[in-house]
């Protein structure tokens, strides 16, 4: 009875704490500018189904895709097992779903294989990440915390799966011994072999089974609350993030309506100049981004497929699209903490540009969309880079000298080069 009470309190506390953190993230995302991404729901559902649910874009790289698929399917399905654990925990039952008989046996059979697949996949991921020199795991933005974060996730998953299999192994052995309440239930294709190395004493086996059970459930609840602090949040946000994908062709960059009004007034003097105050051209800080850009930042799992495909990064330039996303998230978290502390945002003399993302990074981008194409969860680092460029040019008039010269040529001659408009058709008579 006492363990039921402890379990129940733990569960409620974990869920409340998670809800609080999820609320904070939702609030932070809402700091972004409005943008309508709710049109064409059928198309959006289709994208979400293919890209997030179906892992479509992962399969650009078959080996990690397959391993990731194991972890993903394992995670999704083991949630059914989690449901049983929660019910058992609250009501003090044991294997409450076992009344399903052979279907239950099939479920446990499948979970065991999946748990093994998850465990092995995570082990391979751990080796790939830490021992093999894979380009996308080597960026300077991954040093320190992001590297630790990744390893914490992998080790936790390995431990959780080991605990699950250990629990089953002890349970199986107790079932064989006929020790109440361990009635015959389930099929144990993996853990039956693990049972061989377990001791024969029923007391010890019960202790092992209980310890694994508690470790597993406490681990899962702790992991749930680790999500909002970690890149692992992608397991939840991948779904809304792909649903709200950009549907227009990748080459289409949105036009700024505030500029349209001014340009129209310039071209046609009979039109009145727009009176509305324009808050800002382009992006100086995270609040100038759209909520989708901010959702992108929280969804990024730092896999680095974007960076590994970025022509600037490949050729040794400072730009890394992954770092753009990580910087955006870091700055957004900082802004969020500021708001939590001061109720409203207090100026901290920092901004996304310069304090997080340097000019050299944004000017190295060729806008080639390789990063956008590669992202397995449809994140768009290019929109952020473009917003920062717009701020640098339109608010500060600060850009590479040759770029400013190009603007002058465009304004004077209608061409980016210094040739006269009148010479434009000279090629027709040469």
């Amino acid at each position, binding site marked *: 009875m006492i363990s039921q009470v402890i379990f129940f309190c733990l569960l409620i506390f974990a869920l409340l704490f998670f809800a609080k953190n999820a609320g904070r993230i939702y609030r932070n995302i809402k700091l972004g500018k409005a943008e309508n991404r709710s049109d064409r729901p059928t198309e959006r559902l289709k994208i979400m189904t293919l890209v997030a649910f179906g892992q479509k874009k992962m399969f650009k790289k078959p080996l990690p895709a397959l391993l990731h698929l194991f972890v993903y399917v394992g995670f999704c399905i083991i949630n059914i097992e989690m449901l049983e654990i929660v019910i058992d925990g609250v009501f003090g039952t044991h294997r409450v779903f076992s009344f399903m008989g052979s279907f239950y046996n099939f479920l446990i059979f499948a979970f065991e294989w999946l748990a093994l697949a998850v465990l092995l996949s995570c082990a391979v991921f751990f080796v790939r990440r830490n021992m093999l020199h894979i380009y996308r795991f080597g960026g300077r933005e991954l040093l320190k915390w992001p590297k630790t974060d990744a390893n914490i996730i992998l080790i936790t998953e390995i431990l959780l799966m080991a605990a699950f299999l250990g629990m089953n192994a002890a349970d199986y052995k107790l079932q064989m011994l006929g020790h109440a309440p361990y009635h015959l239930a389930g099929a144990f294709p993996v853990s039956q072999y693990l049972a061989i190395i377990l001791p024969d004493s029923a007391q010890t086996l019960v202790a092992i089974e209980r310890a694994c059970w508690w470790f597993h459930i406490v681990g899962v609840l702790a992991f749930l609350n680790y999500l909002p602090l970690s890149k692992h949040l992608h397991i939840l946000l991948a779904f809304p993030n792909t649903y709200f994908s950009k549907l227009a062709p990748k080459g289409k960059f949105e036009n700024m309506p505030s500029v*349209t009004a001014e340009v129209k007034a310039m071209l046609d003097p009979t039109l009145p100049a727009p009176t509305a105050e324009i808050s800002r051209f382009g992006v100086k800080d995270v609040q100038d981004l759209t909520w989708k850009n901010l959702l992108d930042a929280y969804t990024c799992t730092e896999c680095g497929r974007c960076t590994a495909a970025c022509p600037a990064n*490949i*050729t040794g330039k400072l730009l890394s699209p992954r770092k753009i996303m990580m910087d955006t998230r870091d700055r957004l978290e900082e802004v969020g903490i500021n708001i939590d502390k001061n109720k409203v945002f207090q100026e901290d003399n920092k901004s996304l540009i310069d304090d997080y993302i340097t000019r050299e990074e944004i000017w190295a981008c060729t806008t080639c969309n390789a990063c956008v194409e590669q992202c397995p969860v449809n994140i768009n680092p290019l929109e952020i880079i473009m917003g920062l460029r717009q701020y640098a040019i339109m608010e500060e008039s600060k850009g590479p000298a040759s770029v400013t010269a190009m603007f002058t040529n465009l304004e004077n001659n209608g061409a980016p080069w210094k040739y006269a408009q009148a010479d434009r058709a000279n*090629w027709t008579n040469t």
Partner: protein
Amino acid sequence: MESTFHIPTAAEMLANGETPDLLFWVGCAGSFDERAQRITRDICKILNHVGIKYAILGTEEGCTGDPAKRAGNEFVFQMQAMMNIQILEGYAIKKIVTACPHCFNTIKNEYPNLGGHFEVIHHTQLIQSLIDEGKLRPADGHAFQGKRITYHDPCYLGRANEVYEAPRKVLETLDADLIELKRCKSNGLCCGAGGAQMFKEPEPGNKDINMERTEDIIASKASIVAAACPFCMTMLRDGVKLKEKEAEIQVLDIAEITARANKL
């Protein structure tokens, strides 16, 4: 090389009370860059050969504003765009073909929101449809038979607008040895000139992007690399030159290949 035929402007046509069925948007590179001018002329030869009623804007054309927009100058972009839209509407233009993927992308995707609604195609798409209609077919014994040819996808044609097949269609008709680069189609590597990089020095790094791309081309052992963008043309030619491979590797636009294969 003097054109043996007249290239009409929209203004001339209007004076004769006519409107072109197709407007050829030449673009700044196509107008001023000597190498790109050769592509421009070949497109005119193709248009002339198949008898399409086309025109250019001539001195009335202005930059679409693409480099300004990608460099962050929305004002200059929209100024250019609105002036161009006014001129195009003045000539009642409905359909546009262009040799520059940057012009293509901008007019197709970014002009509608400013009131400019035109059907825009890239010259490779026009050539594809002309091949499909049987109006263009390689002449016997053309220059490309048996040659090892590869194609470099321009970002603003490929990834940005998902035009991957049209340029390849041209090469497929050639009876040549076609190969794909290690990075191609949606995984293609940028030439290094997009996003206004064409007009500035690259940021410091280990190497320039066009050199990385040229290495892909050299590794493919192709003797001809087909381009479909004047910026890519410049970057790839520079790369081939710096690698001292000019004798072995030729960079040609899809339009040039079409014109030569059809002996125009």
